């Protein structure tokens, strides 16, 4: 660990990516994540890396696909409307089993929406952003420290499972300044993986990076194999944080910026004698189903706090197999609930019981 520095969330992502060994960044300007690109534009030329402002989000993700095809780490960053454009490329990355990082600093939608914070791309991210059967790893930071830590983890897991990873942040997290301990630089890149397109060197049969398979039987098998890999990730990679859950009767479920708001509300509720705690998913895919299911036998109800119309409530209901009621506290369109609003919902849940 390096010494503590004060950084903006978006800049922490950029620096952490460089420290993780990423030397190729492709992006297109969009609020509220432009600091990632600006940071890369300054830094990459000085360390022999690539910063390229692409002609579009579509081009940027396909440049990422090109670098990923050579086995090297690459990334792009954008915000919700730009992520929609990247979905085609993300599907191709998934179909060709390529690791890469896509940062989504979410803003309100749909359409052009607004430029204020949102979590309304939860479904887009967790259901596989693009056509076809696939998933991407989805990590949801709730501090600038996690912006840095999860960027590194995203690259590591993307490589491990040969799948794209999405860092799902929001405008608040991106703009927020906090002290952060950056990780030490990763070891220099080892030699190219054996599947990479780096030239045959006239020493082997050609590698083909590809998502096309015209034989239905073979394509089916490829999908099944991919899902076997996903099953391992679902077993081994869910990450979450529990807060005051030991004796909780109400379980708040929240990620990212709303988890921070919820934490304050929970502290206030505890002062009023309400037994409430929180499970904060750090990975949204794979979703931390096990701790939620376990909590379902302990608590009377769940309360999802998020910046969308309740997208995560579906995953919570599935995780707890609808054993307990799942409420929702949400603001959308760029609005963020205050701790008082969350507290009011906790109090209401407490009155209603199970």
């Amino acid at each position, binding site marked *: 660990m390096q010494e503590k520095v004060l950084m903006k969330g978006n800049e922490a992502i950029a620096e952490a990516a460089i420290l993780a060994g990423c030397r190729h960044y492709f992006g297109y300007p969009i609020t509220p994540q432009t600091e990632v690109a600006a940071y890369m534009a300054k830094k990459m030329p000085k360390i022999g890396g690539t910063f390229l402002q692409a002609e579009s989000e*579509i081009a940027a993700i396909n*440049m990422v696909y*090109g*670098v990923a*095809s050579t086995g090297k780490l690459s990334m792009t960053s954008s915000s919700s409307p730009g992520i929609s454009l990247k979905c085609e490329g993300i599907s191709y990355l998934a179909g060709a089993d390529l690791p890469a990082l896509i940062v989504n600093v979410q803003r309100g939608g749909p359409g052009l929406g607004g430029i204020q914070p949102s979590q309304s791309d939860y479904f887009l991210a967790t259901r596989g952003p693009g056509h076809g059967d696939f998933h991407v790893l989805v990590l949801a930071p709730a501090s600038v420290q996690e912006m840095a830590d999860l960027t590194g983890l995203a690259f590591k897991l993307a490589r491990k499972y040969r799948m794209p990873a999405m860092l799902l942040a929001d405008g608040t997290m991106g703009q927020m300044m906090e002290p952060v301990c950056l990780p030490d630089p990763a070891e220099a890149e080892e030699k190219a993986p054996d599947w990479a397109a780096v030239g045959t060197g006239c020493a082997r049969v050609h590698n083909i990076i590809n998502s096309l398979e015209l034989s239905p039987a073979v394509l089916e098998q490829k999908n099944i194999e991919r899902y076997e890999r996903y099953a391992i990730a679902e077993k081994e990679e869910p990450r979450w944080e529990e807060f005051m859950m030991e004796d909780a009767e109400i379980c708040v479920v929240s990620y990212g910026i709303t988890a921070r708001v919820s934490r304050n509300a929970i502290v206030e509720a505890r002062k009023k004698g309400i037994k409430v705690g929180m499970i904060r998913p750090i990975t949204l895919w794979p979703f931390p189903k096990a701790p939620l299911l376990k909590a379902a036998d302990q608590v009377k109800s769940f309360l999802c706090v998020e910046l969308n119309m309740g997208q995560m409530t579906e995953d919570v209901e599935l995780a707890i197999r609808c054993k307990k009621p799942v409420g929702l506290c949400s603001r959308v369109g760029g609005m963020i609930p205050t701790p008082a609003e969350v507290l009011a919902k906790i109090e209401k849940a407490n009155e209603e019981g199970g």
Partner: protein
Amino acid sequence: MTTVFDKPKSLTDAVFHYCPGCTHGIVHRLVAETIDELGIEGKTIGIAPVGCSVLAYNYFACDMIEASHGRAPAVATGVKRAMPDNIVFTYQGDGDLASIGLCETVSTAARGENVTVIFINNAIYGMTGGQMAPTSLLGQVTQTSPYGRDPKTQGYPIKICELLATLDAPAYLARVTVNNVKNVRNAKKAIKKAFQNQIEGKGFSLVEVVSSCPTNWGMTPQKALEWIDEKMLPQYPLGVYRDKGEE
């Protein structure tokens, strides 16, 4: 006896899926001959498009990447930036390069990205069964221009070499065809130059190959080659539209 002509080593043994008389096969061979002659097979990375030549990745013996529709130049950009010492080429048809991927084509050319683009212009979407392409000729009957391409509603053909020649960056832009022995030889020279330029770090090189599609044009293979002379070349004149080496 010595062999004066045989299949180049940079083609695999896979059998081309192309229709009888389709000139994709000729252009594939010219690219492979070029790779052989320049001795770059081991460090070449090709990008295949979506369209009739989608399976090009099976035919070239070098490492290959299959891109999404139209995005091959963006993929090539990523590969070249990551592997600047490798030789990177895209092989794209007219729907891929001049329609859905036009933005990537123009932007990659405008950046002067040091890659080689082989562009097959046969004025039609072949793989999907013969729809109107951005390069279809005025009056040309296709599945989606059944009464002939009408400029009032369907616009005019896009001339890629002329379009890209308005940009400062490209190093080499040439239009060739492969409809007879002499023209195939000229096409080979242009393709070789486009690869040589990349080796020398000269920047973006594109060779537009005016090609035939006998199946979807509804002609015999030989008639289709004659149609190139009669109809295609007046719209798409052969020539070198940019050559920074010569300027």
